[in-house]
Structure formats: structure tokens, C-alpha cells
């Protein structure tokens, strides 16, 4: 079982994800713009400000060569997790529907938020309880989810209005649940030392899912 973290110019949560995955015992490595994703069971697009958010957040990164590799991995049914800027990149790639726009307040928002787990039937959320309330940090200027697909599978919702997202959507997944895009940062909340450990279940969910499917 191998996980790959795609490091774009301007990614800045790559090391946090690395440590979170190590913490749950996954073999992880960083992947650059010209690398391959062959042999990867889980691909993570971390948070940050790829290409300085030029043009639109994630727009440039989504057209990089490595992003075509991400698309190939998705076509092969691999698990893809996009966090924050990674979510923005997945949307710009068209792997998830909708758009992520500037927060309705016009301000960058950086704080812990309460979320409701809406869908526990995905490889990423199987260890959560349905409708469980969890706390994770958010840190984004462009997190307002603009919904275009009424049948979209919503995985997490904000309990309070954080950024003006349609239906308070914080995370969405594909029909098969294998591609997850989320604005909150589970990698900043996987052990008590970080101020919370509600993000841990997301990582243990993926690990257990991959182990079960490998054997």
C-alpha cells in the first residue's frame, strides 16, 4: 500500500499530510511535476497556494503534466484526496463538479469549524458515525462551494456558515466515493497535540479500506 503526495510549486500542507499518513502507518512519498503515479493506491493533492492562486486557485496546477497523471490514476480507480487547494485543483481538473469561489465575506478565514459527517459510505469516512459532529481547522480565501450538480454526494457540511457555500457544503465526492475534495484540513487535526484529533478517522478509514482491498 503506497500513498503519493503531489507537491506543486506553492503547496504548503504536503508535510502535514506526510506526517498524518506516516502516523497511521502508510508508506508515503512526495511526487513532483514530472513524476509518475504508477503503483500509488492513494493520491493526495495537499493544501497551499499552487502557482500563487494566479488566474484562479488551482487553475494552473490542474493543467500540469502531473495532473494528467492524477487523472489517469482516477481512471484506474485509485483513491484521490484533495484538501483545500487540492480540492480546488480537482474541481479545476473537472474530476469534481462545481466551483470554489471567494468567501462571501471577502475575507480569508482561518479557524476551527464544526462539521457534520453526511456520508459515511466512502473509503475516506467509513470510521465516522453518520451525522457525527466533528471539529477541523479551515484556512482559505476561496472556499465558497458553488453547486452545479443537484445529485452531488456531500460528505461534510459546515454547521455554521463559514464562507457562504451552497447548502453549507464543505466536502464532496464522486458517485463511487473514490475521489474526495474537502476544504477543511484533517491533516492538521490527527493527534491531540495539534489541538484536535477528529481528522484521524479519515486517515484510519483510508488505511483500513486499502488494507482490506489489498488482501
Amino acid at each position, binding site marked *: 500500500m503506497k500513498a503519493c503526495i503531489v507537491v506543486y510549486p506553492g503547496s504548503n500542507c504536503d508535510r502535514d499530510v506526510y506526517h498524518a499518513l506516516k502516523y497511521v502507518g502508510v508508506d508515503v512519498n512526495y511526487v513532483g511535476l514530472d513524476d509518475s503515479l504508477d503503483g500509488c493506491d492513494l493520491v493526495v493533492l495537499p493544501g497551499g497556494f499552487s502557482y500563487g492562486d494566479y*488566474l484562479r486557485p488551482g487553475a494552473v496546477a490542474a493543467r500540469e503534466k502531473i495532473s494528467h497523471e492524477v487523472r489517469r490514476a482516477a481512471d484506474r480507480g485509485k483513491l484521490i484526496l484533495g484538501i483545500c487547494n487540492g480540492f480546488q485543483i480537482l474541481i479545476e481538473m473537472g474530476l469534481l463538479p462545481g*466551483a470554489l469561489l*471567494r468567501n*462571501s*465575506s471577502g475575507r480569508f478565514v482561518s479557524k476551527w469549524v464544526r462539521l457534520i459527517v453526511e456520508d459515511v459510505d466512502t473509503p475516506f469516512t467509513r470510521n465516522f458515525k453518520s451525522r457525527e459532529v466533528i471539529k477541523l481547522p479551515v484556512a482559505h480565501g476561496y472556499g465558497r462551494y458553488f453547486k452545479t450538480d443537484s445529485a452531488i454526494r456531500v460528505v461534510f457540511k459546515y454547521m455554521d456558515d463559514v464562507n*457562504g457555500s451552497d447548502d453549507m457544503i464543505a466536502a464532496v465526492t464522486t458517485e463511487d466515493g473514490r475521489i474526495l475534495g474537502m476544504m477543511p484540513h484533517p491533516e492538521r487535526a490527527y493527534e491531540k497535540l495539534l489541538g484536535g484529533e477528529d481528522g484521524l478517522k479519515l486517515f484510519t478509514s483510508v488505511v483500513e479500506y486499502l488494507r482490506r482491498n489489498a488482501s
Partner: protein
Amino acid sequence: MSKYRFAIDVQFKSSVRDPRGETIERVLRTEKGLPIYHLRLGKSIHLEVEAENEVEATRIVHQACEDLLVNPVVEEYEVRTL
């Protein structure tokens, strides 16, 4: 081959809220007392295309818009020659 210059005007669709535009509009109206409404803050992109002729150059500009410069989910655009 000749070079052709274009300006691309990118705006949010009317169904999409533009908090930056709203803030600027509010300041102009309440602080400056100007009767200004429906301010939308888009972006303008100027570029040069190398092509055989203007028709081909225009086609290339539209392709650039569709491939990267514009997000058709929330934005619309207009192209003009410079």
C-alpha cells in the same frame, strides 16, 4: 506569420455573487456619495497571438479561453482586438 493583439474581458455570470465588487460598490455609494450600482469586478487579459491571419488568431484566443483563461462554470468572456 503576423502578430495580433487581443483583450479578453472575463466577468462572473450574473448568477454568481461577487463580494469584492459589492464592497467596492458600497464604498463608492456610501462613502463617496456616488449613485453607483451593480458593480462587478472581473479581469482583463491582454495578449498577443502569432498566426497566419486574424481568423486563425481569433480561433486560438478562444481556445486559450476555453482551455484555461475562463472557467465556464461561473464566468463568461468577451474578446476584442487591440
